[in-house]
């Protein structure tokens, strides 16, 4: 089988699993991000600003663990562009750790101003605040150097797409940063615009403001997306899924808040995907089981939840109509033996995948050195690849 055929075969495996069709084997989607840097014998600081080192780490991973899909091929955490521009980023890294500081681009008073014109707001408010006095001192030479690094970054992204092709690896979904991801209003408010703290307070003290933002977001951002989904006229079989959405803000909401700020809009999006018989993956960070009732009436095939903290067996019982991605805990990959990991992987495949509806993956984004032991990753990858139910 050549790389092109292998890619098509893998897409079929993912789609069949999502559609609850029994597959000859369970596909393994690697929810692996920066752990591959450590596994290749490097430290984060060596790979984050050097495309050659990052590519070496990615190739090392793909050669060692022949997975069917992967979240990141080294393009997500690169710092060349921001470092060329100077100090002041929210992201930080050292040899062992990468992280992000909670940040807020807006206050409740300026939230709607952002919506009026995001580029203008970024230029006049966010960037001056972020870079402080040095913003005014960004001269032509700094901008030119930043642009040069930015072009190199884009070239790297395109290069790594070819690497994916060479390994017969399909992309997760058509979303990409160039086109703009499908981001529910509450998620962008919590992650970037208001930050965790202001968002929590605003849900209680300024609910009408959030309603206004969400309704404008719906009309200005989501309506064109609904139209694009309808125009697509069905699934895009170049990818594992037709869309990948991230849910995190629900963890900060009680049911009443979820029903007001999140569910009506998420439902509308899911209904449009359902009308077009598409497969979508939702990475449900934290836990989503307490909200199971909202998702129980969707037909099999529409939803695949990549679960993080929820127990996969309880999840299957609560939502038998939703395919499961994940299951393999980083806790076991990190602290267990290869035998224990394989025994658990077998249980996952046998109990969740016997009639389709299961994609093997790690429950958390595997990022830090101790998130997994190499021998455990190797053992489960080999097992899942060879196992036939």
């Amino acid at each position, binding site marked *: 089988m050549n790389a092109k055929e292998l890619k098509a075969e893998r897409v079929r495996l993912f789609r069949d699993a999502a559609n609850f069709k029994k597959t000859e084997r369970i596909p393994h989607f690697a929810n692996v991000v920066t752990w591959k840097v450590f596994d290749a014998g490097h430290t984060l600081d060596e790979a984050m600003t050097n495309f050659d080192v990052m590519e070496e780490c990615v190739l090392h991973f793909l050669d060692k663990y022949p997975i069917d899909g992967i979240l990141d091929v080294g393009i997500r955490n690169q710092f060349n562009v921001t470092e060329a*521009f100077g100090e002041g*980023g929210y*992201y930080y890294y050292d040899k062992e750790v990468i992280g992000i500081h909670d940040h807020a681009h807006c206050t409740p008073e300026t939230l709607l101003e952002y919506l009026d014109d*995001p580029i203008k707001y*970024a230029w006049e408010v966010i960037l001056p605040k972020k870079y402080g006095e040095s913003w005014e001192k960004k001269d032509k030479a700094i*901008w030119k150097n*930043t642009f040069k690094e*930015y072009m190199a970054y884009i070239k790297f992204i395109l290069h790594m797409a070819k690497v994916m092709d060479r390994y017969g690896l399909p992309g997760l979904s058509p979303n990409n940063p160039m086109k703009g*991801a499908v981001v529910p209003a509450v998620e962008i408010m919590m992650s970037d615009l208001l930050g965790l703290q202001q968002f929590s307070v605003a849900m209680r003290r300024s609910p009408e403001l959030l309603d206004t933002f969400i309704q404008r977001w719906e009309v200005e951002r989501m309506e064109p997306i609904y139209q694009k989904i309808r125009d697509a006229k069905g699934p895009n079989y170049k990818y594992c899924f037709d869309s990948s959405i991230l849910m995190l803000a629900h963890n900060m909401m009680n049911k009443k808040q979820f029903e007001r700020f999140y569910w009506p809009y998420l439902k509308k999006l899911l209904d449009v995907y359902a009308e077009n018989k598409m497969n979508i993956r939702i990475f449900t960070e934290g836990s989503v089981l307490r909200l199971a009732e909202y998702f129980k009436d969707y037909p099999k095939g529409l939803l695949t939840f990549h679960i993080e903290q929820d127990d996969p067996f309880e999840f299957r019982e609560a939502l038998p109509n939703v395919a499961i991605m994940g299951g393999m805990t980083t806790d076991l990959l990190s602290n267990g033996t290869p035998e224990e990991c394989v025994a658990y992987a077998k249980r996952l495949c046998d109990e969740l995948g016997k009639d389709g509806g299961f994609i093997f993956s790690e429950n958390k984004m595997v990022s830090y050195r101790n998130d997994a032991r190499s021998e455990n990753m190797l053992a489960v990858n080999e097992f899942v690849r060879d196992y036939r139910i």
Partner: protein
Amino acid sequence: MSWKIGRKTDMSKKYTSYPEGYNRVARDIIPWYMRPVKDMLMRLLITILVDG
């Protein structure tokens, strides 16, 4: 954390008016042969600088 690209601020909306400084930078740094995609390039660059 959840990783950079997964959380990019959505700057895809069409602008209404570019600030003067923005236009000057775009003129300074984008070569002539990339001008047809100038707005897309600038939007993504600003997104990286805002979120990174």
